[in-house]
């Protein structure tokens, strides 16, 4: 933390220069110590518990290790990666499922949330009640969502098969168990939560849109659809970026729901679940698990970097 003069406000806000500029160098020695401690403690926590483990994770992807004694660690070069790409059957299905997860959230869940937000933004009667209903799943954990939908999807006792009239017959589908359909069943359960999340963010975004823009558009004879796509949607760009990032990150982080269903096997493979399968259990192939984690990390860094560079561009 080296000493730099200047003013946070002037640098970040830019708009209103204050008369008396804060100079770091004006601070007393005691104040500097206090300030340094306020920065040091949280930064140390971040380094020790987030960033150093992230680096170690990448390093571990180049070794062979059973996770027991440190003396057993053997260098492995790229062997873990070639193993994953060539000889590890669940990897490619898992990658496909992660992509499917992203596409489904992006094409179904996110637009559904946006649609709900647009409809509820129109001073509709009972808007608050509708909002509470759609938003309710957002406060549930994904584990709980898995359990609740398990009751709904259950082969012989679930509501869905009763409604389809197949319950108790050989045609009854085991929605979470059948590897041909369970990813879709899980995606619908995930949509249940994601759409409400997107809805609430867009509702906040829509409330922030200047009403005069709509007035002007309607005076110019634009219809609702034109007004929305040509004016409102572009104005909400900051929110759109956040939603895109949230959607990507959520699809990379998807874990809890498949883990509670069947630990991410048999049709529900996801990279995140494969990482854990390799770290716990009998095998304890730390190298392979870490290589999967490193792949997940690299993929995740793409949206993270895009988001951060957009968010902090004005500050830097």
């Amino acid at each position, binding site marked *: 933390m080296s000493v730099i003069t200047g*003013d946070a406000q002037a640098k970040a806000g830019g708009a209103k220069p204050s008369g008396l500029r804060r100079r770091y160098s004006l601070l007393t020695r005691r104040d500097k110590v206090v300030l340094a401690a306020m920065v040091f403690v949280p930064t140390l926590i971040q380094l020790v518990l987030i960033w150093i*483990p992230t680096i170690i994770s990448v390093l571990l992807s180049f070794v062979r290790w059973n996770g027991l004694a440190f003396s057993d660690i053997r260098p492995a070069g790229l062997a873990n990666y070639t193993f994953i790409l060539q000889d590890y059957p669940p990897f490619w299905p898992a990658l496909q499922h992660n992509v499917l997860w992203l596409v489904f959230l992006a094409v179904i869940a996110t637009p559904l949330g946006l649609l709900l937000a647009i409809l509820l933004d129109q001073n509709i009667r009972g808007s608050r009640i509708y909002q509470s209903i759609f938003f309710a799943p957002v406060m549930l954990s994904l584990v709980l969502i898995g359990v609740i939908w398990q009751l709904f999807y259950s082969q012989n006792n679930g509501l869905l098969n009763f409604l389809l009239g197949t319950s108790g017959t050989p045609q009854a589908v085991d929605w979470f168990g059948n590897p041909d359909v369970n990813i879709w069943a899980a995606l619908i359960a995930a949509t249940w939560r994601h759409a409400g999340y997107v809805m609430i963010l867009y509702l906040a975004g829509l409330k922030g849109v200047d009403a005069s823009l709509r007035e002007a558009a309607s005076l110019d004879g634009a219809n609702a659809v034109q007004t929305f796509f040509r004016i409102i949607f572009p104005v909400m760009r900051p929110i759109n970026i956040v939603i895109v990032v949230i959607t990507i990150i959520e699809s990379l982080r998807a874990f809890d729901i498949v883990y509670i269903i069947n630990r991410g096997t048999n049709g529900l493979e996801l990279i995140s679940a494969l990482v854990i399968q390799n770290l716990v259990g009998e095998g304890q192939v730390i190298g392979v698990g870490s290589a999967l984690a490193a792949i997940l990390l690299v993929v995740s860094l793409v949206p993270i970097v895009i988001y951060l560079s957009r968010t902090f561009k004005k500050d830097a």
Partner: protein
Amino acid sequence: MSTTTTRAAAPAGATTPRRGKPGSLARPRYGIHLFLIIMSVLWLIPLGWAMFTALRPKADTDKFGYFSFGGAFNFDNFATAWTQGGFASLLTNSLIIVVPSVIFTLLFASMMAFAVSRFSWKFNVTLLIMFTAGNLLPPQVLAAPLFQMFKNFELPYSVSGSGSLLNTYFAVIAVDTAFQIGFCTFVLSNYMKALPHDITEAAFVDGAGVWRQYWAIIMPLTRPALAALGTLEVIWIYNDFFWPLLFIQSGNLLPVTTGLNNLQGQFLSNYNLMAAGAIITVIPTLIIYLALQRQFVAGLTLGASKG
């Protein structure tokens, strides 16, 4: 979205005369309501079904089938699930994890946010970027190194039954805190940046030190954001499944969200008990949600709107 004209008058009062076709003025929005009602019903079905199943004794569902209205409706499953599942201890464990995690998160995040937003120094933006990025990583990326670090961090057996940080609440609280600090620092620094600079300048001129500016001036003004984030974090950490799954092996130490995983095996064929267990797990979040819905929503949107 068939109604062009009515939506134009945005603010709640809608005092401006509506423009456009006169016919549309009286047209009620049946289509929108129909759609929203159908969606609401679809949305409530999974929760409603869980509740319905939970309220019926197993014997009656076995006799009449799950999809039937025959037999009794009562809270017996809740009582059974509560004792058999050990919910008293599961919920206590959740409380032990959630309360310190949220307090530490808000404390450290507000200190960091104060330092990066109210003062300018060489790496303040760099550090803020690092904090924000850390929050966005998939937790599984850190799983192996954190597990090894905690396994090899030796503690006296009087403190930890495992002789290390594994299987202790310290591990879960520390990682939950570290993971949430990033998001909270980001939100709070945006909030603090928007507070006028003159207030701390005046205090500075009056001789108030950095700590006093933080604790006595900035923190009280940040209270709305702290309340919103606090509510959000309580629900998020309560809902966290992964860290306790990774660090805690003893079933009797698990918090409720992770413990639910074990109950699934325990209540295997008894869907009624499982449903009751699920509903019990929802209740704390439901109470917070109903009491502090505004805060919760504000917490979510605070993070997004400043992006």
